[in-house]
């Protein structure tokens, strides 16, 4: 009984969220809820509002109207450090040239847990080491962050998020610019953490095989949400992405598998 209720527990609840910049509407009345422990993918074409939606989730942007609730509390009412202990974020880009060692970057994840004067103790160092081992960068810990490859950098950022001990991990296009191996590796790593993950994707097949739940955005509106099977359909993809596709079953896990057709005029009728 309790098991079922925790599985169904809503961790993030979005209620009529709008975000405007001057008169332009970037997010238009979005309502959805994200279950605890689920893996949610945010999909949509460029400019659909994916990043803005995630930014509202991690409080980098304040909604023009509407509320985001974390386990019932409006996130704007929580203190920044309290919220940072619950929600960790991995972004697509990090600034260059800050001359930090890999271990230093990972240790920054402890920031919300540390008061002004406290030093890192043995437990903290152990946590940093464990996180680096978990993502497979412990042999690089004394290297400069800049010298790492794109995939390694993202793994370091995930290690930093692990050290933050969050309940929710938000990732904004963490796999763009990475080659296929790392795209799969990063997402499987995130899934293996066993916490709630919300990530935006460009690769529909990767999203289909990783996510339990998908939010499909277009023009700032939530077009569809639900399981990959219910959202990733030929009809929706044609409507939202303006592409012609065939959706079949993946031979390994029967998640939707998208095959694209080429040479079709956008918006024209098509046969399968």
């Amino acid at each position, binding site marked *: 009984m309790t098991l079922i209720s925790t599985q169904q527990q809503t961790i993030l609840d979005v209620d009529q969220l709008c975000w405007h910049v001057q008169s332009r509407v970037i997010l238009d009345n979005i309502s959805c809820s994200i279950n605890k422990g689920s893996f949610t993918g945010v999909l949509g074409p460029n400019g659909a509002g994916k990043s803005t939606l995630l*930014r509202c989730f*991690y*409080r*980098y942007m304040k909604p023009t109207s509407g509320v985001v609730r974390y386990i019932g509390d409006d996130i704007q009412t929580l*203190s*920044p*450090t*309290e*919220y*940072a*202990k619950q*929600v*960790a*974020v991995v*972004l697509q*880009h*990090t*600034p260059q*040239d*800050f*001359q*930090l*060692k890999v*271990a*230093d*970057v990972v*240790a*920054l*994840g402890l*920031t*919300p847990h*540390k008061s*002004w*004067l406290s*030093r890192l103790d043995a437990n903290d*160092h152990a946590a940093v080491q464990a996180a680096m081992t978990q993502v497979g960068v412990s042999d690089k*810990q004394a290297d400069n962050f800049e010298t790492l490859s794109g995939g390694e950098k993202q793994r370091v950022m995930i290690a930093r998020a692990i050290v*933050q001990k969050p309940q929710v991990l*938000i990732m904004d296009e963490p796999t763009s610019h990475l080659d296929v191996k790392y795209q799969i590796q990063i997402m499987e790593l995130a899934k293996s953490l066993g916490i709630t993950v919300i990530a935006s994707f460009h690769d529909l097949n990767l999203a289909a095989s990783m996510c339990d739940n998908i939010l499909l955005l277009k023009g700032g509106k939530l077009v569809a949400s639900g399981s990959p099977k219910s959202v990733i359909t030929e009809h929706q993809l044609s409507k939202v992405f303006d592409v012609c596709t065939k959706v079949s079953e993946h031979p390994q896990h029967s998640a939707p598998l998208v095959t694209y057709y080429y040479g079709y005029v956008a918006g024209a009728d098509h046969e399968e």
Partner: protein
Amino acid sequence: MKNNATKQMVYFSVILLLILIFSFASALSIGAAPLSFSQVFDSVFGLSNDQSSYISSIVWDLRMPRSLLAFVAGCGLALAGLILQKVTRNPLADPYLFGISSGASLGVVALMSVTSLGFGFYLSIGAFVGSLLAVVMLLVIAGHYGPRQVENMLLAGVALSFLFSAFTSLMLYWSDPQAVTSIMFWTLGSFARADWQTLWIPTTVVSICLVFMFLHQRQLTALLLGDESATTLGINVSRLRINMLLLSSLLTASIVALCGGIGFVGLMIPHIVRYFVTNGSRFSFFVTAFVGGIFMLWVDIGSRIILTNQELPIGIITSAIGSVFFLSLLYLRKRKALD
């Protein structure tokens, strides 16, 4: 692993401390009237019985306050540069780039040309008011928080810097030649005006800044990852940046007020220290401040002995060393890129 790093840090601190003691001893003994280390030692610790009053007055009344001011000014300028470089993530940021120094100059020049007051406490107030004016204008123009806060601040800083320089030049143009000479001398920087009565001001400000930065070191390091990442670590980025900006302007103002314009130190010292101590270290603030102080002690020694019977302004030496430093940095990087 961590023990090793701590051990390294201890060795490093000991070496730094020895260099500091040697530098101070040199600063007290080198000058127009050379003293031996043992004379300086005896005078400082009051060991000599037949203490001739002239040695003790050279050490205590002239060289000690001057060297302390040089050290504190070096600490403060290096710290101000480090703060600005950290909060803007721009390795070229320093008090000059933000118009803080030119604001201070404007304050001094305005006061000198309007009231024709000589050197003294009033000028410090003028410098202080000028640099605070610069920071307030900077915050009004570019202080509102947004995705481009850093870029806006840098642009506004450069613009303000030119604006203040224009006003300063205009006032100099209208002033009488005698005032122009003394203003000119002031803007080149000197520690000759050091005395025990005013020394506490920069010392207090630098100490407060060191403590404040030490308390916020984790947040400052996190800021290096970018505003967005820092926000997700629970940091109020905008408030931290504005506090730090105010702090560095306070540092600059209190030092410029007493010593005049001293360029390149804020830019150069953090660069040098970064070769030895990573940005992630808890001690990088202290090391930067110490290295800045030691550097300034030697610049002051140089200013006293390079020309016979005459003092070379500090600003000339720091700018010369600074430009050579950056040119060699460029050359070394080019060589490294070719290898």
